[in-house]
């Protein structure tokens, strides 16, 4: 299946987000309601064309193209933050749960998508039955405190392409203090229906992820165990 065949367009302010259905729900009436899995790609990536081989999930599978990535809108002038991408993912959550606060999803993120998955698990804790954090582009982020990081406007010729160059630059170096990341763990632990709502499976552990993995209530496991946690 091509990524463009089953796309739902979600309007997030002035951006159109592509939500790809990679595998539909099983129509069998005997089957209990299947929780959707949402895949969040890494920095500079896009939703894969089909369900990745590393996914062990029996329910429906979706992937979201973040702002400035894949088929989603490339906005003018940059201004990215993972908080905006969190709001992107929140739009997908609303769509996949039919705006029903009683329904939940499981989310798996690579790199930058792992960071956003953590944030979503904290921000919408009652609706996130598990967040799996994997290696991928954009996992590290940038400084963890004040710095003299500088700024450069890009030449006009680079504006408008996907993935958005401004997104690559800004999201690869955004502030990632560890205590900010662990505040989302506390929120997730307090509100998620899962006993251990966050599973860290990444090999690379930048400072924020090291702190998350060590926090109470977080499963530090391999990927196979993570799938069984939220099956």
């Amino acid at each position, binding site marked *: 299946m091509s990524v463009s065949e089953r796309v739902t367009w979600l*309007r*997030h*302010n*002035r*951006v159109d987000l592509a939500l790809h259905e990679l595998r539909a729900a099983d129509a069998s009436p005997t089957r209990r309601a299947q929780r959707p899995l949402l895949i969040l790609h890494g920095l500079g990536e896009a939703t894969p064309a089909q369900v990745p081989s590393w996914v062990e999930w029996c329910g429906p599978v979706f992937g979201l193209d973040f*702002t400035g990535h894949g088929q989603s*809108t490339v*906005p*003018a*002038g*940059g*201004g*990215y*933050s993972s*908080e*905006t991408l*969190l*709001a992107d993912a*929140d*739009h997908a959550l*609303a769509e996949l749960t039919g705006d029903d606060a009683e329904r939940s999803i499981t989310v798996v993120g690579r790199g930058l998508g792992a960071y956003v998955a953590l944030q979503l698990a*904290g*921000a*919408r*804790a009652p609706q996130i039955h598990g967040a799996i954090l994997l290696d991928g582009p954009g996992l590290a982020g940038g400084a963890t*405190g*004040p710095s*003299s*990081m*500088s*700024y*450069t*406007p*890009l030449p*006009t010729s680079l*504006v*408008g392409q996907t993935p958005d160059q*401004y997104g690559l630059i*800004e999201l690869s170096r*955004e*502030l*990632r*203090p560890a205590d*900010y990341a662990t*505040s989302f763990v*506390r*929120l997730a632990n*307090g*509100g998620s229906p899962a006993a251990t709502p966050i599973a860290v499976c990444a090999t690379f552990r930048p400072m924020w992820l090291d702190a998350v993995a060590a926090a109470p209530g977080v499963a530090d496991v391999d990927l196979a165990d993570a799938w069984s946690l939220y099956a």
Partner: protein
Amino acid sequence: MFAYDRPVTSGAPDIERRRAAADGLDLDGHGEVPVPGAERPARSYDLEVGGLRLRVHEWGDPDAPPMLLMHGGFDFARTFDGFAPRLAAGGWRVVSWDQRGHGESEHAALYSWDGDMRDALAIFDHAISTSGDETTRPIPVVGHSKGGALMTQLADAQPHRFRCLVNMDGIPYKRNIPEMAEHERTTMLANDIAGWLDHRRAAGTKQRRPDTLTGLATRRARMNPRLPELWLQRLVTTGGELVDGDRTDPDSKDAGWRWRLDPSMRFGGFGPWRPEWMLLRLAGLPMPFLGVLGSEMEEMGWGTPPDKVAPYLPLDSRCEVLDGVGHFVHIEQPDLVAGMVLEFLGTPS
């Protein structure tokens, strides 16, 4: 890249239409509430920056040495209508701009501190290249509120651009929240984030609520209780727009004056950034620095106690605290503050 070759003034507003919606107030020939000492920019024009259209405003002789003036969050460059002409009278070409989503600039899809920072750099380049200089050279910079905080960070990142820096009540100290227990803080964060996400879900369809001219001025007075009524009314006619709403419905709530500010923006929010980090950058600034703080705390201010700033002032600096003055030091005391700034800037060059 820049549109400076074809400067234009604002399109002639429909004066009669504005007068009819002025609640009986006298409007000037531009359909704006006149305030003694306030002047429209000598030149207003569009500049394309990274694909976004920003509105630039200038006061003073176009051949005079340039300086930059940056407004605060939820404000717009025309709040300098009183202050900027006084600086221009000192021999400067004062260049200001409406930040993305503010004033007459384009509403963007994304907003961030970094985005504003890059926009500011484009304005630096523009001001210098249009002054006949081919290379980057340091110029004076004045910022108010968020504009002061942002320029303080930029001065740390690119000190070679700054001849000196004036920060008008834009020194963040720390979040204005009381001491609270961990679980209370977590609950507050949860509510903040959920509130913000709910706002984002609805942002695409939001419109700012129109009001009468005096009604909108009264609403603004809640944020700026110390600003004179006439100034608040002028702000409505310079930072607001008159919308018709449904012409067939005389009771339409969609007609009237509303702020041009992007309705997707909202106060508050959350993120990894901490206001007190600004003080740490302030301490190392190499260029001459003047801080101007108002002693009266207001809703739009940062609530920074002056005695907390003193230990972080850079070596070549001074900080003036204006007693009995609020966050908008340059509107409340334009002569005093402009005089202070001109003396600090020295001879234009």
